[in-house]
């Protein structure tokens, strides 16, 4: 049993994730004397780690479709633990936000509407991740049959979109161009990988396109997704950018004070 555990990469990934969370919290406690700031930074970092883990989990399938599953079998095997780690950090982020930063669900009524909608989106996303986690065992795959289990796990793409909207609307760092660039770049790469995977799958199943057509369809699909991401800010505002007003031609004292 011990040897089997030590030969399982999921054990190492899960152990690493838990140890990392403990070390991050301890390091933040040592560097931040203010308790409110500690809570804020902890939930921000845990939220970021959740997104990073989720991103990696979502990138594995398209990479496998491109390079071949056989070449990255251990990574595909590890995906389950990566997804569970994403949920672990997402849950920690959620708990800290609701009970540490806000002081409970009763405080939600005092928040602006954008905050409330963003929290609803985040809550639905964590519920999806919770479902994914509890159904991630071999037993559930047998009970649900692989086909329905796989279908239900596609819910993570809805979860991913909700997380994206949640992060965009409330992410404090996303008012800066460099963070926006990093986010857009990461999403463009993931969109590209997923587009290749989808086109390959469609062609394998229905043989709709020849090689050149596949490339065109793939690029078009990727461009559509990236355009939607770029247009998101025009539909969903970022809460922290409301402190700037680009329609004013002169910088007011308030904007100077806020550092804009």
């Amino acid at each position, binding site marked *: 049993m011990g*040897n*089997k555990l*030590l*030969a*399982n*990469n999921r054990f*190492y990934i899960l*152990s690493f994730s838990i*140890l*990392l969370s*403990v*070390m991050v919290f*301890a*390091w933040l*406690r*040592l560097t*931040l*004397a*203010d*308790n*409110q*700031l500690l809570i*804020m*930074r902890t939930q921000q970092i845990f939220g970021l780690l959740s997104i990073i883990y989720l991103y*990696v989990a979502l990138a594995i399938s398209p*990479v496998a479709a491109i*390079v071949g599953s056989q070449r*990255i*079998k*251990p990574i*595909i*095997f590890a995906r389950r633990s990566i997804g569970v780690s994403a949920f672990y950090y997402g849950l920690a982020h959620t708990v800290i936000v609701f009970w540490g*930063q*806000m*002081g409970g669900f009763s*405080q939600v*009524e*005092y*928040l*602006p*509407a954008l905050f409330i909608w963003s929290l609803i989106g985040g809550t639905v996303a964590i519920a999806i991740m919770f479902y994914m986690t509890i159904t991630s065992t071999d037993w559930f795959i047998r009970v649900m049959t692989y086909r329905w289990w796989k279908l239900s796990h596609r819910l993570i793409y809805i979860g991913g979109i909700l997380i994206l909207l949640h992060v965009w609307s409330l992410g*404090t*760092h996303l*008012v*800066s161009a*460099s*963070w926006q*660039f*990093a986010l857009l*770049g990461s999403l463009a*790469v993931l969109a590209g990988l997923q587009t290749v995977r989808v086109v390959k799958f469609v062609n394998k199943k229905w043989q709709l396109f020849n090689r050149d057509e596949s490339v065109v369809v793939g690029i078009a699909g990727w461009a559509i997704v990236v355009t939607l991401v770029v247009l998101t800010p025009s539909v969903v505002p970022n*809460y*922290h950018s409301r*402190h700037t007003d680009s329609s004013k031609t002169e910088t*007011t*004292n*308030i904007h100077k*004070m*806020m*550092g804009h």
Partner: protein
Amino acid sequence: MKILYGGLLLVGLVCLATALAPIAKAHVLIVDSTDSKGAILHINPNDNPVAGQKAALIFDTDKDVLAKNSRVVVDIKSDEIAVSDRVEAEVEGPLAVAEYTFPSRGVYKLAFQVMSGDETMTFNYTQRVSRGIDTGAAAQPDYEWAKILLLAGGIAMAMLFIIAFNNRHQIRQQSSF
């Protein structure tokens, strides 16, 4: 291997972008003394003011807290530092912003008084300033348990990597469907 390098490059780009990013503004929800209205408080820089440097106290309201004729003052007190100041905030739409230079590290009680006609709402918040000028008047907390936890975590992490490295062949063979 190319995938690993590609992944590392992407992570590196993200880290570079975040390292170059300007300061962030986080948010704290504060509720008035009657528990009927709320506001979001940001304190620049980075919700972590520096004693001796100007800080911006940004009071972001919603849902009819600030009216056109509202006046906002911030009372700033600290028993440790023997400070009691009042600062007038500049009101613009839903925002009220005040500038204040915390004189020393320590714990400060902030009271945002929103005066609209005959009505006054008070929003209280306690801010610890832990950077900048230190007069020694304020006690600095010591978290010995955090040091132990960090060290223990680091050791456990190192052991995890060593065990993983020693079992790498078995991991590669057995970690598959």
